[in-house]
């Protein structure tokens, strides 16, 4: 018999992972997490353990993402994919309210609020925990966004510490990962070695502890800690990209006229993929969809992007007509003025914007270019001064 686990931590054998899904379903959660679809690992509903991407690995580079089979049967042997949790907290297209004309009166009905079941996010990585905390400041720091707030407060966060890293990752330099340290209800650390295939489980909240008590756990051993240390070292060693998080704000402000903006503007497609894939980009617009009869109307919120021409349209003209000026605006906000607005960087180093850019523009490379040399001759990103 293994020694008994504590009430906040223990070890779950691989064969018992399915029990976690059962416990979550039993507790009334709608479990969402990673699963394979259309050649990528996306976030979607999970019903059983078999829905997880068991034995799948991803290969990521700037502008490229591929899945491949792995032989060792690891469950979480992949990095963050095209989706992020923001799609659940800040839905891409969402009914805010609807109106109906009844005689001389206008009846207003609110849009859908909470689902009947609270969400359980299974597989939240360290960089994504950081993204959730950044989003909390955006959506709840001042005026509270009811849609976000209701879902966020009810959602159970089950973190999974990365056991691999992609060449597009740069979380260590952003101080957001790869180790999972806080911001979760329950965390999992998958280990696979001659000592076995198992998960170190840790509970950080009452909700987490209530779930942990229902899992068949054993106490941790020195071997578990040894494997974890080796795994963490391997993950960190695999991360090559970096970004000067503390320098970025001033570096960007001092280089608003750098010729590099024109260079990247010639490559950028203004397609919005970076901002859509970003776990913290939060821009939206609203649309009014009246019925043809004119008696009813629906008011939606939908994801928008600073790369769209209409995004910067002020009284019929766009103040950021050049793509260079839009890229500059995005990077300046994400890494610079986000500090002024929210007290943090807007970037967590997940690398999604690098992988999912169709032409592979890499923000770490752009920042390095700004840092490498100050502009010798001042030029202007056309139409750009925001």
């Amino acid at each position, binding site marked *: 018999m293994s020694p008994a686990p504590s009430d906040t931590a223990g070890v779950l054998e691989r064969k018992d992972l399915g029990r976690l899904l059962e416990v979550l379903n039993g507790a009334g959660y709608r479990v969402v997490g990673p699963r394979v*679809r*259309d*050649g*990528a690992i*996306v976030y979607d509903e999970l019903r059983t353990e078999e829905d997880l991407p068991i034995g799948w690995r991803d290969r990521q580079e700037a*502008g*490229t*993402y*591929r*899945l491949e089979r792995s032989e060792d049967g690891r469950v979480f042997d992949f990095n963050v994919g*095209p*989706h992020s949790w923001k*799609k659940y907290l800040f839905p*891409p*297209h969402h009914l805010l309210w609807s109106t109906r004309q009844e005689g001389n009166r206008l009846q207003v009905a609110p849009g859908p609020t909470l689902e009947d079941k609270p969400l359980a996010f299974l597989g939240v990585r360290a960089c994504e925990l950081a993204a959730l905390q950044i989003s909390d400041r955006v959506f709840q720091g001042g005026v509270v966004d009811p849609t976000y707030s209701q879902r966020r407060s009810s959602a159970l966060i089950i973190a999974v510490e990365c056991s691999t890293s992609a060449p597009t990752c740069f979380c260590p330099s952003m101080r957001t990962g790869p180790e999972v340290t806080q911001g979760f209800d329950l965390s999992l650390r998958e280990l696979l070695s001659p000592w076995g295939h198992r998960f170190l489980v840790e509970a950080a909240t009452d909700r987490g502890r209530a779930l942990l008590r229902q899992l068949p756990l054993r106490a941790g051993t020195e071997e578990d800690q040894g494997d974890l240390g080796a795994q963490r070292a391997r993950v960190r060693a695999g991360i090559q990209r970096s970004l000067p998080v503390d320098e970025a704000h001033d570096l960007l402000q001092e280089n608003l006229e750098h010729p590099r903006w024109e260079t990247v503007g*010639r*490559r*950028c*497609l*203004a*397609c*919005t*993929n970076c901002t*859509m*894939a970003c776990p913290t980009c939060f821009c939206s617009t609203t*649309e*009014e*969809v*009246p*019925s*043809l*009869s*004119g008696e009813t109307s629906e008011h939606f919120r*939908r*994801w*928008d*992007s600073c790369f*769209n*021409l*209409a995004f910067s349209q002020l009284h019929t003209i766009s103040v950021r*007509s050049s*793509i260079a000026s839009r890229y500059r605006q995005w990077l300046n906000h994400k890494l610079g003025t986000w500090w002024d607005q929210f007290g943090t960087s807007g970037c967590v180093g997940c690398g999604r914007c690098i*992988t*999912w*850019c*169709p*032409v*592979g523009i890499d923000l770490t490379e752009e920042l390095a270019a700004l840092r490498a040399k100050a502009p010798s001759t001042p030029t202007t990103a056309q139409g750009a001064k925001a």
Partner: protein
Amino acid sequence: MPALGPNPRLAVFKFASCDGCQLTLLDCEDELLTLTRRVEIADFREASSQVIEGPYDLTLVEGSVTTEEDRHRVQEIRAESRFLVTIGACATSGGIQALRNFADVEEFSRVVYASPQYIRTLATSTPIRDHVSVDLELRGCPISKHQLLETISAVLTRRTPDLPTDSVCIECKRRGNVCVLVARGATCLGPVTQAGCGAICPAFHRGCYGCFGPQGTPNVPPLTHRLHELGASRGELLRVFRTFNAAAPAFRQASESEERAKT
């Protein structure tokens, strides 16, 4: 936007086209009865042979100008219309028939027709906007039913319709589609193509072929460069840009650049 009378008259006219965009109006089955209560359908020959003379409050124009007669007819239609909306790739960029703009029409006529002396056609297929002023354009081959209803509703209530010039990518991402270009290396024109279709093709695992024409600020050269890196040949990209919006300037420049590089 001009104010409309209490019983606005709607007319639908066609030029060189396949009728598919007009069909989108007939396809609004659930909304048709409501529509007929809001507007008087004055001239819509695909739906009814009953014709009421102009002027019209809202005119939908499908198709491109390809004959001398059409050049005059479009002027007459404009003169009879308070608000003129062009619908579809033919009307907004010249359509697939604008392939003639890249070739010798006389030679085509000799090859295709037994008696080419009866063919009287212009050397080019051009969008309606090249001939008369146009109030709004609806892109697509065919147009989107949602955008059509949105536009009619906007004209009736004198507001600006919601017709984003964003790329198809944003619709893919809102839908949760996995990017076929990044995850499969598929030839996809989504990044340079205007939204409006709801990203139908990528949702069915194929690349966008640009039927809504170029987005608001299309930057095509870096995309073609990337597609070449992924293995697309010059000939393939030439064909991809020469479809329903072949004559839209950004797509025309792209195909001509592929053609020059090929020869």
